[in-house]
Every structure is written in C-alpha cells, then in structure tokens.
C-alpha cells in the first residue's frame, strides 16, 4: 500500500504537472540550407505555468531562440505540438495565428523592432488597431497609460530614432502589453542594453509577473537567469533537466545533456518509501517536486525523522560514493508526495568520474550529511526541517 516505509512503489512517469499554460510536446525543428540539414530542437518537451517567470538559457546556437519562436508561432516545428491555453497553435493558418498571437502573446525582441516611421505612441497603438482591441479613443488612452507605466510619459510623440535604446525597449514592452495578453515572450530583451537599463527592464518584468502575467525570457545573461522563478536550460537542441542543472551546477553542458538522457522521472505518493535504510544503493535521486523525509530507525523499531528535503535537493549519494548500504530511509512526505529524477548507480558513478568537481561537491555534501545523521542518531534529536 503506498505511503508506508516498507512498501515498494512502482515509479510513474509524468511529463507536465496539472494544467500548464504552455505545453511543448516532443518538438523537433530541422532547418534546411545549402550546407545541408541542421536540427535546432531535438524532441523538446517542456511546460510553463501561469504566473511563472521563466528564463530560457543556453549558449549561442543552442536553440533557445528557436524554442521561443515555436512558442510564439513565429516559426513552425518540423514535428511536435505546442499548446497554449489548450490551443494547438500550429494548426492555425498564418493569418489566424497572427491574430491569435496579437491577442494572446506579447513579444519583446532583442532589437526592439519598433516601426521606425511611427511615433512611440503610434507603435503602442498599432497592435490594438490590428486586432481591433478597444475603439480609437480607448486605444490612445491605453497606449498613453502603458507608456507612462514604462516611464515614457512625455515621449509619446517621439520617433524611435529620437530616443535611447533603453527607451525603445521600454516602448517595445509597452507595445507587447497593448492587448493585455496573459503571456509575454521576451527574446534577449536586454541583449542590446547597458546593465543599468537591463536591470530596470528586468524589474519591470518582475512587476508584471507580480500582476499575474506569465513571462518567458530568453537570455544568455546568467545573473538575470538566476533571479527568475525557474530556468530552462537548452543545450544542443535539448532541454536539460532543470533539477539536474540546479542540483549539479558544476557539470558541463555535455554532461548535463548526457545525464538528461539517462534520468528517469518517478512519482511517489505521500508516505511511500523511496529508499530503505540498509539496502544497497541503486540510484541517485534529485527532488523535482514535493518533499521527502529522511528517517532513521531507532533501536526498538521507532523512527526518527532527521530532516526534510525539498525541490532541488538530492539524496542517495552517500552510499553511492562511500559504498555500503543506505544509512537512512527516505520517504515521500506524508502531505505532498514527491516527484524525483533518478539516475542509475552506474550512470551516476560514470558522471562523477567524468566530473571531479561534481564529485568533490557531492562528497562534501555527503560528508556533511553523514556527520549530521550520526549526530542525530547519537543525540536522538527530533525533526530538523530544511527548506
């Protein structure tokens, strides 16, 4: 029966959580040019949820802009589906998609892409005009409000060439918000800005998320990427498992890709045992969702919850590195259950052998935990909860 310590649980594979706002299913994108074929996205599956502020990061050529283009409908996948709000957007024709996009997505480009011969005010009005949003008076009023919101009150009648790059990008953000779309997609929005302006744009995005918008931001700026709700890393056309990337940041991109290919996603209902104390190690686990309790068996058959672990933390590493058997039981939280990403023992050992820095980092954590477990066992202390 699930939820008890000694019961094995059949792991379940689950792609996305409940009701994602944006769902990408096995997206493949191949480009053909004179030099031959180039596959930019290789079966990407990803989900984004309402109210998230997600950064999509990766090196140049990794496929992050292509991924953003799949979501915006700017480009079409060779295979796969993109569902936004339940709508398979790539089933629409170009014209219908343009209209849908204008109403549901706001796009912020790296190079601003304002109409050079329209004033800032007219640029912001343009999407409303194209989609028939509000009447003429309403459009102008809203456009002025949006420009004020982004700090451009007084600049309404300027042409883009007459304002700075930062101001142009702010105007572009105002334009993206014109039809009040629930989702904003920003492709390198700060790529052409100085750091101060970039920071101000980023603050604006944070405010918008706070107001309920969902923002996906393609960026190569690692500092900005750290400040978001979630980071999706793309490498060589594949989405690196974010939990792997978060848990093992010292792995190289290639190692992360390899690991992503070799992990298994498992779900454990509340209370289910993930690993038993005293059993030989067979996997390395990273928590993707929910929590686990680390439980020590006491003499007399009682249990002591030593600590609780949450998303992004890993377990099972001590026995894998030091040998022997697991020195604690790990059980899905009785309230939340847990989703984990599991890496096979041999694959884990292969990975740490390839990455001495990762091995050293995990080793350090293992040492610390082993000491904590020992101390807890000796002291008979109660639950120490860790975020």
């Amino acid at each position, binding site marked *: 029966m699930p939820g008890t310590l000694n019961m094995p649980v059949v792991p379940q594979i689950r792609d996305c959580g409940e009701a994602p706002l944006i769902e990408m299913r096995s997206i493949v994108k191949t480009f053909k040019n004179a030099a031959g074929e180039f596959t930019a996205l290789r079966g990407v599956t990803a989900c984004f949820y309402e109210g998230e502020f997600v950064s999509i990061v990766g090196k140049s050529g990794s496929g992050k802009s292509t991924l953003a283009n799949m979501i915006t409908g700017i480009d079409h996948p060779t295979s796969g589906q993109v569902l936004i709000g339940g709508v398979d957007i790539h089933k629409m024709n*170009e014209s219908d998609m*343009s209209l849908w996009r204008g109403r549901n997505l706001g796009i912020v480009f790296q*190079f601003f892409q304002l*109409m050079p*011969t329209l004033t800032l005010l*007219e640029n912001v009005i343009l999407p409303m005009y194209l989609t028939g949003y509000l009447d003429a008076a309403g459009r102008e009023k809203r456009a002025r409000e949006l420009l004020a919101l982004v700090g451009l009150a007084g600049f309404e009648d300027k042409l883009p060439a007459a304002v700075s790059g930062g101001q142009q990008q702010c105007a572009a953000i105002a*334009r993206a918000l014109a039809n009040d779309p629930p989702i904003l997609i920003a492709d390198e929005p700060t790529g052409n800005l100085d750091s101060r302006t970039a920071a101000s744009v980023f603050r604006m995005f944070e405010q918008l998320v706070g107001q309920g918008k969902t923002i996906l931001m393609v960026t190569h700026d690692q500092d900005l990427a750290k400040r978001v709700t979630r980071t999706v890393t793309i490498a060589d056309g594949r989405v690196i498992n974010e939990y792997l990337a978060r848990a093992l940041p010292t792995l190289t991109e290639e190692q992360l890709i390899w690991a992503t290919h070799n992990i298994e996603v498992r779900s454990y209902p509340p209370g289910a045992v993930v690993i038993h104390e005293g059993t030989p190690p067979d996997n390395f686990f990273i928590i993707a969702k929910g929590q686990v309790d680390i439980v020590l068996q006491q003499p007399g058959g009682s249990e002591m919850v030593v600590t609780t672990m949450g998303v992004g933390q890993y377990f099972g590493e001590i026995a894998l590195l030091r040998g022997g058997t697991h020195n604690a039981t790990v059980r899905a939280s009785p309230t939340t259950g847990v989703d984990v990403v599991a890496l096979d023992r041999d694959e884990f050992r292969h990975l740490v052998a390839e990455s001495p820095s990762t091995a050293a980092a995990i080793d350090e954590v293992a040492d610390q935990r082993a000491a904590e477990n020992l101390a807890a066992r000796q002291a008979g202390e109660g639950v120490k909860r860790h975020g």
Partner: protein
Amino acid sequence: MGSPRWRKILGDLWSYKTRTAVVILSIAIGVFAVGMIAGTQEILTRDMEASYLAIEPPAAILGVSAFDDELVNTIRRMPQVDEAEGRGGVSVRLSVGPESWRTLNIQALPDFHAIRVNKIAPQQGAWPPRKREILIERSSLYLTNAQIGDSVIVELPDGTRRSVRIAGTAHNMNMPPASFTGVVDGFVTFDTLEWLGGSHRYSSLLLTLTDTSLDRDGVGRVVSLVRDKIERGGYSVTFAYVPIPGKHPADSAIQPMLLILGVLGAMALLLSGFLVVNTIGALLTQQVRQIGVMKAIGATTRQIVGMYLATVLVYGLLALLVAVPLGALGAFGFTEYLARLINFDIIDYTTPPRVLALEVGAGLVVPLLAALWPVLGGARLTVREALGSYGLGRGRFGSGRIDRLLERVHALSRPLLLSLRNTFRRKSRLALTLTTLTLGGATFISVFSVREGLFLTAEQKIFTFWRHDLIAYFDRPYRFELLAQEARAVPGVVRVEPIAYTAMRRVRPDGNQSEDIGLIGTRHDNDLINATVLSGRWLVPGDQNAIVISTDALRNEPDLAVGDDVVLKYGERELTWRIVGIYQGGLSGPRAIVSYDYLAHITRRPGRVSWLQVVTSQHDRAASERVVRELNERFKAAGIHMSGSETLDEVRQNIGTQFGLIVSLLMVMALLLAAVGGLGLMGTMSINVLERTREIGVLRAIGATNGAVLRIVIAEGVLIGVLSWAIGALLALPLSLLLSEAVGVSFIQMPLDFVFSLGGLAIWLGVVVILAALASALPAWNAARLTVRDVLAYEG
C-alpha cells in the same frame, strides 16, 4: 490622430525620401510617356482635323477658263453643291535680296469678308488688303526677308516690276508648309491681281458638297456632273482635282509619324512597367522585416496586403500629380512644334479623356499589378523568415551556374571580385534592370542608326538625284540655244543641260484627276540626273511615250506599276504613256521622267526648255549664289525672264527640314527611353546599396576606407551598365534594321540605307557609365558616411 496604418504609409513615404522619389519617378516616367505621346496623337488628330474642317476645305478644285459669278451662282444652285467660290491667281517672282528671287504664288479672293470655301483667316495687320497691297501667308513671311508694312518688289511674268506693300499676314491651313516648299504664298484683291498681271476673272472654282459623307469616288461622280454643267455653259475645264475628303494634305505624312511615336510610346510604357516591378519589389524587400514584426504583433495577411497595396496606390497618385501636368506640357509642346511645322493652330488645350484614362492606368493600374506579386510574396512569408531576413544582405549566391562560373574568376582584385559577384546576387532584380536598360539602350542606339541612315539615304539616293549645282526656272519655254549661250557667258558656268518641264494630271479610270504630276523631259543619257531606278528601267534611245514614274507620285497613285499604261491630261488632250520604270523620289512632289524630244513634240515646243541645269566650276554656296545673280542679269538683259532658281544647297535644306522633323521625333523618344533605362539603373543601385548597408558597415569594420567602399559599389553599378550596353548593342542590330525599314517605308517609300551607328553606341556607353556611376555613388556615399556602429545597427 489617423489610423496607424495610414500613419505608417505616410510616415514611410516621408521618412525614406530617396526611395519614395525613386518609386514615384519610376511610375511617373511611364505616365509621362503615355501622356506626352498619346496626348500628342489625340490633340494632333483632333485639332488638325477640327482645324481643317473649320476652314471648309474644298471637296474639289476645278480649273475653268475665265469665268465670273454667274457661273459660280449656277454651280452653287446645284443640289449636290453646298458652296462654290471662284478664285484667281498668278505666279510671280519676289525679290528677297540683291538679285535674289523667290516664287510668289498669289491668290485673289472675291470678298475677304465672305470667304465661303477654303477659308483664310486674318493674322496680323490689315484685313482685307487694299489695292496694291498683299497679305502674306504667315508661315512664309520669313522667306520674304521683309516685315509687315514693308514694300517688296515683285516681277511679273512679262518682266514688269512692281512695288507691293505687305499689309499683313493671313493663315490658310490648306497649303503645304513653306519650310517644305520654299515658296511664298500671298492673298490679294482682284484689283491688285489685275495690276500684277493677272486676270480680273476667276480661273479656279472651289466646291464643297451637301453630302459630306461621300468618299473620293463619290465626290468624283459629283465633280463629273459639275464639269458637265460647266462645259454646257460654254466654259472649258482645264483640270479637276479631288483631295481625300476630310483629310489634311499632310495627314499621310503625319500618320506614319504618329504610328512610330505610338510604338515607341508603348515601349516606354513597357519599360516603365519593368521599372515599377523592380522598384516596388525592392521596396517590399526592404519592408520585409517590418512585415514580420507586424505579423508578430497581430497583423493578418489581408491587413498586410491591404496596407502595401494602399502604399503603392499613394505612390501612384503622387506620380500622377507630377506626371500628368508634365505629360500635358510635353504633349502641348510637341503638338505646337508639329502644328507650327504643318501650319495649323491648336484650338483645344484640354487633355482628352482617353489620354487621362491611359495615364491613370499607367499610374495606378500598372503599379498595383506590378506590386501584387511581391506584396503577396512578402505577406506570405513566415514571421521567422521575415525577421531573419536582415543580416549581411539578401540574395543567394553560390548555387547557380553563373555563380560557379564567377567563382572561377580570380584574376581580379578582391574588391572588384566582390563587385562582380554582388552584381549577380539578386538575379531576378538584375534581370529586370538589365531588361529595362538594354531595351532603352538598344532603342537609343537604333534611333541614332536611323538618323544616320536617313542622312546617308538622303546623300546617296536623294541628294544625288540632281548632279547640277543650280537649276534655273523660266516663266515660259525659251530656245535652249539662246539660254545656253547666255548662261555659258557667265564666268564659272561650265555646263548647261536642257530640261522641258510640264505639269499634267493623271486621268484615273473613274474619270477623276490627280493633282499635278511634274513631267521632266530630259535626254536619256543626261548624266546630270542620277535617279535610283527601283524597278523596271530608265529611258533608252528611241523611247517616245515611255515614262519613269517617281515613288512620290506613286504615293497618291498606288495602283500604278511598271508595264501599266497611264493617261495624263495636258490641256484638253489626254495622252497615254507606258510606265517603263519607277525611280526613288526626292521628296519634291509627284514627278516623272520622260523623253525630252517626245515631250517637246507633244507640247509643241521643240527645242525649247523651261528649266536649265547649270554646272559651275566651284561648288560652294557663295559661288552658286554669285552665278545665280549673274545669270539673272544676263538673262534679263537678253529679255529672258528667269522666274526662279534653286541651288543644291537649298534642296538639301528643304529636305533636311523634313528629315529634321522625323529625326527630332525619334530623338525625343530615344531620350525618353534612355531616361527610363537610366532611372531603372538608378533605382536598382539605390536599393542594392540600401539593402547592403550592414555589409558596407562590416567592410568598414574590417579595414575598407570610404573610398574603397565607394569603388566597390560604383564598380557594381558600372558593371551592370556595361553589361546592359553590350547586350543592348547586340539587340540594336536587328532593331535598327526594323526601325530603318519602318521609317524609310513610311516617309520615303523605301527602306533606308542601313547604318549601325557607332557614334550612338559610343554615346550610349558614355551615358550609361556616367548614369551608373552617379546612381551608385550617392547612396554609397551616404552609407559610407555612417559610423560602423550606426551601420551595423541599421534598421532601414
């Protein structure tokens, strides 16, 4: 505030002024060509016909032995006759300088205030002229070397000289232009006519008919009735001339001209169409990224298509604003020039609706059609394709056969290699540009070829007809020996040759008569006449009623051919001649060559001549004029009345004037087509450079100086120009042949001698190279002046 769509359209127009100007000019030039040429055609045809009909042109002119108003009234009462009017006339000599004379044909009108037929309108000065005064036809005043108010000396047929005052000028449209004939025309009262040696009675009867729908044959039948009535009245009809009803005499010369104009105008419109396709295609290319952005923010395909077609419409309207008035000006200017030449007035300056409709078609419909394909193509691009379109220039290079061929070219400097390969990056645009420029260039060169062919033909076939230095005309036939004796006594006269000249009219099978055909009676072996025999043969010894007819005569008598018998009327007698040959006419009116002996015999003037061919020892103009003066004095002293003379220079001048008209028409068209071609190149180069502004920035970032950038771009432009020149030169060969044939057959009834104008070839090369350099230099200079940062961030 207006809608953002219109704001964008107008903003784009204003912000990219160079591009706007190029597109508008591309459209405007086609509109202008249509407006000018169609306008000229319409106005000329409409006004010439209207002006001609307004003068009540005679349906027939009959020469009748001395008659008066009684006969006129009798004829007027015939039910078929609408109006009848009698006229008198005499031909005298007018002194135009020291011992320099011109023929003055004088017409006497019965009542200047009530002219019923062949109306003459007052221009300047007195109306009507008083006794001993004359009104000169306005187009021939310049030939008199006198002004209104001056008194001039006229010499009557009997040698008497009178002083006549020029009281004013009048205008009669129904006369051949004085610039063509070299003859002065004047109008007097019958009192003055009598004083000048004419008769106080009428000698010609002018008629208009009640049924104005009759064709020439129908008119001829009425003329027969009239003639019968006249002869029953005891008068004799010496000739009856029926012109083509409703058609001005110059119509047969004007129509081919208008046809050629129309063809060239259609060509200009076609080239302009190519130009428009090219420039609008390039304009759309530049807008592709903005199209992508608009689609990204919600614009549907229909909205995009509508926006850009509206843009093209605005360009078209602006082009119409510019070109319609210019086309009208061009049409009026051209028509005025032709009208002055033909001697009629334009009465209606409004642009005909048909021309406006054609202009609107050229200015709106053609650009919209031209824009449709690129607009639809641009609107159908995916957003990614559209947004990914900027970078280091567009255009594919590398996969085609031409590209691979160019890749093998290594013997040039890198910058020149870049120019060479850049030229072929946008192949469809290059093809359109080359087509426009090549056709324009080929036509330009062909026009020069035709011009040279015209003058060569004139030199070799027309001017060589007469081998004398001057010809003297006499008011009546004189004995040749007498004339020769006096002429040979003048220093510088080397040789004289007799010519008997008589005018006869052909009696057609239907009984109608032609206009005068001048019969030149000469010895069969007279080498001072060098006619080009086109078919049949020349005169041979023993020929009697053999006649060699000119192509000028055949124009009005197209049914005649070698071997036919032709009946010519001389006085009351009808004489049958056998056509033995046809010779190339010299644009001097309908003429024919016959045996001197036979002509002298049938005109009962054996040994007498009315023309004398004179060969002088020196052949320059001054020598000829001196000899003319001295001949005048000698003949006068001998009691011989020389009615006029003509040097070879004067013949060349008259013919040159006629040719000049054709040539100036063709040159205007050549310039127009050259302008279209040049504009096409300018547009292409401007847009090529604009598209590659980022590339230019990269070049400068890696070390290219402004000068190097300029050289690369200018070399590309010049390369296109030279390529078009080479292809155009090849195309000009067959085109020149075609045009030479068409112009020659239209104007002088034979194809012109073919000349391929090397001068035209060289001029076009110079024009195209300069145009190409200028077209490339300005945009390249603008781009080269931007900072590298600006250029790499260029979002035009």
